[in-house]
């Protein structure tokens, strides 16, 4: 994407600025506070819907809605419009965005999908490099650098997937613990069915075989649900005339009564009190829980300390002793929390067991009560069953789930049984007593029936554990494999970026042909080291100058941007990024931009006039694509000087009979123009200690120097006997003389009718010839073919020629040493 025209209305300090870029590079230059950064902000906002400078550290309280628009404008009046070329879309298209609706880019529908990709790239910051960014790339600690580069690389998708897979691993681990807990509960239920105090497989098998023998079946050697009743003969109906087994029912009622007994009540109350004490300690200190969660990490971190003071997790450089003390403090607190957690876990397990031991019996007696027609007993028992089941669930995660409101302290002794349950149990017990006893064979049959049901559940539980265990192993392999793949891809990517970075850096510093660098992940950080004069690899800020660091930042950014924008976002904004780079290396920056990025469109801002002139001289920007911001005011913004449309704007002003505006534009434009002429021709400008020069100074020096160079060129041509060249230069002298005459150059300083300070007093008819004269004067200093300024070239400090960039204008200044 390239910008052809840019129109900025009420963005930051720019009330109204229009720039015809034509897809070419643009230079915005001017002093600090002249509004240059407003152009950067406007481009940033147009492409991304935000102004990066208003975000990030130190921008608290600053918002796009309140501070993005000009201080005197409403958000809806703050608009950036552009005409752009977009790869894949035929012909230029118009796009715009308003601070009033920052999330909406107004554009043709057929371009929306492509522009969404451009927006995504821009939101990652791929289009703008500022000095602040350079610091993030170069002088930042490894973790900040990794953040910055990974943001640019957009690793968010990769990171989201990693997090998702970590969640899979953790969920399955939690699921495995729950499944193992279920197996414990199922074992307890099976033990209860066989009248065992705790589950022991061999003992359970022995009891099952006793009942099988009673029913005439052979012994079995393994406890399998499919074998429990295999070969047993069922009792005849007259061996148990009722629908329940009184012996087993009595045991169930007895087990419930025992759970409600005073001796059990004292145990439960004590366990519950200890549980609450531990829970209270953990919950009352949020830090304790926090450190508990990080204990393993902190202990690992302490193991990894190497005495350098570098944080093993984030690579931040800290004081070694302070870091060690800090981590040890956290570890001690975490260990303290661990003790409380283990105590809590033990008590939670005990409470869970109290519930488990009685739950199966409650279930059985509720069914029995239903069969006996005692609805009240059934309802109370079912209510209790629900309460104890929720207690079991709460004990799986007591810190997160348990609530005192659900399990009041005063009811702990009753194991949170409903009131009057005892009376209902008495009624049920009496009904059981009235029932005729079951035969021994019937009892064995009923025990095996219960055992079969519960063993079947237990086998299902074991299958569940096996399934989750395998899934958990697969999840671990999956994330290991993912992370290995990610590391391989990133390593490959970083290698490519490093190679390109080195290539760019060597262009800027061609006296360092053996320069090398490394860019590689190190833990959570990204280690970046560069060669220093062949003496080894160091952090960029260790030995290199600020200027070298700035050029490294530029090279690294360009290496990243080149790789990632993939041709879609052909625009790069460089916001005052060579402040610390010296003049010689800036020339090389120009070379890098023109030779390595011929297809990119650069928008470059600077307050440095020398750099502006270098960019022009090197052909990075053309004369007409330099805009000069000066004299910014709140109401008008900057006065914008741009040579390309200078004459058109002046004509517009004269057409509107606004001589004042036309005169101001001519004066500012010519000041800017002849300042550049002085630079190109190496003209001598009269020095003043205030370092302020006006048109008179620039013009006098430019004309004088032009005459001098023309004279030297003629003399040189004569020395070589080049008569055609001499004739051509004579003709040019003649044209020059006419133009000088027309501008009344000889008398301009004393003639009030053409003195630029008085231009504003002229009528349009009087002023038009002055404008034409200056327009023609400017053409003297430009090549008619390439439109660029002619400039003096030197070799070894000696002026050798006056040339334009395309070579059509060439005045030789090296005289022949032979005498004709």
């Amino acid at each position, binding site marked *: 994407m390239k910008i052809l025209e840019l129109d900025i209305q009420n963005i930051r300090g720019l009330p109204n600025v229009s720039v015809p870029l034509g897809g070419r590079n643009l230079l915005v230059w001017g002093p600090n506070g002249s509004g240059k950064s407003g152009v950067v902000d406007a481009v940033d906002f147009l492409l991304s819907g935000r102004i990066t400078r208003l975000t990030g550290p130190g921008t608290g309280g600053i918002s796009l809605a309140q501070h993005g628009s000009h201080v005197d404008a409403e958000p809806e009046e703050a608009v950036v419009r552009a005409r752009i070329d977009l790869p894949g879309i035929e012909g230029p298209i118009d796009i715009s965005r308003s601070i009033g609706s920052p999330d909406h880019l107004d554009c043709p529908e057929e371009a929306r999908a492509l522009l969404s990709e451009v927006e995504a790239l821009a939101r990652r910051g791929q289009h703008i490099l500022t000095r602040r960014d350079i610091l993030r790339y170069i002088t930042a600690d490894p973790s900040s650098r990794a953040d910055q580069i990974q943001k640019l690389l957009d690793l968010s*998708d990769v990171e989201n997937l990693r997090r998702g897979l970590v969640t*899979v691993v953790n969920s399955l681990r939690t699921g495995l613990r729950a499944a193992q807990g279920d197996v414990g509960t199922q074992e307890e239920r099976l033990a209860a069915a066989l009248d065992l105090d705790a589950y022991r497989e061999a003992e359970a098998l022995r009891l099952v075989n006793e009942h099988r023998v009673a029913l005439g079946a052979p012994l079995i050697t393994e406890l399998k649900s499919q074998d429990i009743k295999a070969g047993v003969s069922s009792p005849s109906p007259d061996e148990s005339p009722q629908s329940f087994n009184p012996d087993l029912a009595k045991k169930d009622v007895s087990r419930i009564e025992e759970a409600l007994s005073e001796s059990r009540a004292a145990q439960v109350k004590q366990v519950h009190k200890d549980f609450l004490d531990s829970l209270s300690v953990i919950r009352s200190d949020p830090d304790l829980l926090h450190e508990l969660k990080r204990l393993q990490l902190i202990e690992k971190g302490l193991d990894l300390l190497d005495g350098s003071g570098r944080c093993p997790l984030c690579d931040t450089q800290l004081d070694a002793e302070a870091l060690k003390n800090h981590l040890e403090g956290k570890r001690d607190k975490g260990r303290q929390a661990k003790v409380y957690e283990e105590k809590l876990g033990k008590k939670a397990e005990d409470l869970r067991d109290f519930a488990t031991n009685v739950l199966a019996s409650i279930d059985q007696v509720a069914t029995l009560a239903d069969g006996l027609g005692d609805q009240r007993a059934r309802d109370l028992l079912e209510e209790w069953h629900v309460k104890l089941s929720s207690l079991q669930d709460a004990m799986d995660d007591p810190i997160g789930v348990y609530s005192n409101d659900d399990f009041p302290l005063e009811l702990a002794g009753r194991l949170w049984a409903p009131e009057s349950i005892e009376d209902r149990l008495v009624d049920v017990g009496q009904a059981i007593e009235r029932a005729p006893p079951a035969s021994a064979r019937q009892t064995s049959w009923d025990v095996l029936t219960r055992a079969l049901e519960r063993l079947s559940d237990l086998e299902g539980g074991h299958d569940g554990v096996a399934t989750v265990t395998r899934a958990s192993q697969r999840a671990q*392999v999956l994330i290991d494999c993912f992370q290995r*793949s990610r590391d391989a891809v990133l390593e490959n990517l970083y290698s490519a970026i490093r190679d390109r970075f080195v290539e760019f850096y060597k262009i800027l510093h061609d006296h360092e042909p053996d320069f090398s660098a490394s860019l590689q992940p190190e833990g959570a950080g990204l280690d970046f080291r560069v060669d220093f004069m062949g003496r080894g690899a160091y952090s960029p800020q260790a030995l290199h100058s600020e200027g070298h660091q700035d050029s490294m930042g530029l090279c690294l950014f360009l290496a990243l941007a080149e790789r990632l924008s993939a041709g879609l976002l052909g625009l790069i904004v460089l916001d005052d990024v060579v402040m610390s780079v010296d003049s010689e290396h800036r020339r090389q920056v120009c070379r890098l931009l023109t030779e390595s990025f011929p297809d990119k469109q650069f928008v470059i801002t600077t307050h440095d006039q020398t750099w502006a002139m270098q960019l022009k001289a090197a052909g990075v920007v053309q004369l007409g694509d330099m805009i000069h911001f000066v004299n910014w005011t709140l109401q008008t913004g900057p006065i914008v000087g741009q040579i390309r449309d200078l004459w058109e704007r002046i004509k517009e002003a004269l057409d509107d009979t606004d001589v004042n505006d036309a005169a101001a534009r001519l004066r500012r434009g010519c000041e800017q123009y002849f300042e550049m002429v002085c630079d190109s021709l190496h003209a001598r400008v009269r020095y003043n200690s205030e370092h302020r020069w006006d048109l008179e100074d620039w013009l006098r020096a430019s004309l004088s120097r032009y005459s001098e160079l023309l004279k030297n060129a003629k003399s040189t041509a004569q020395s070589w006997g080049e008569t055609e060249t001499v004739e051509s230069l004579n003709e040019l002298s003649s044209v020059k003389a006419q133009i000088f005459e027309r501008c009344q150059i000889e008398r301009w300083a004393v003639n009030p009718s053409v003195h630029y300070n008085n231009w504003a007093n002229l009528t349009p008819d009087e002023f038009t010839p002055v404008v034409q004269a200056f327009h023609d004067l400017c053409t003297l200093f430009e090549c008619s073919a390439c439109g660029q300024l002619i400039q003096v070239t030197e070799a070894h400090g000696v002026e050798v020629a006056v040339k334009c960039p395309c070579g059509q204008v060439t005045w030789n200044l090296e005289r022949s040493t032979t005498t004709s």
Partner: protein
Amino acid sequence: MESIDPTPAEHQEETQPSEDKDLLDQVLLLMFNDLPTTDLFSPEQIEKLRQLADAGSLHRPERVIEILQAE
């Protein structure tokens, strides 16, 4: 029964990350090339994981768990 492609041969030929591919695509390409080397996964599971990745849903834990728990 969904159709299964048990031979990831074409993927084996593409293990070198291409500059044109998104980073995530490159990572997934390598990962799916490695997974069949362990006997923990059935070809059906790998294919389902691949389909989930193609649909951009591999980051959804519940979908992944469902596949990993299937026998």
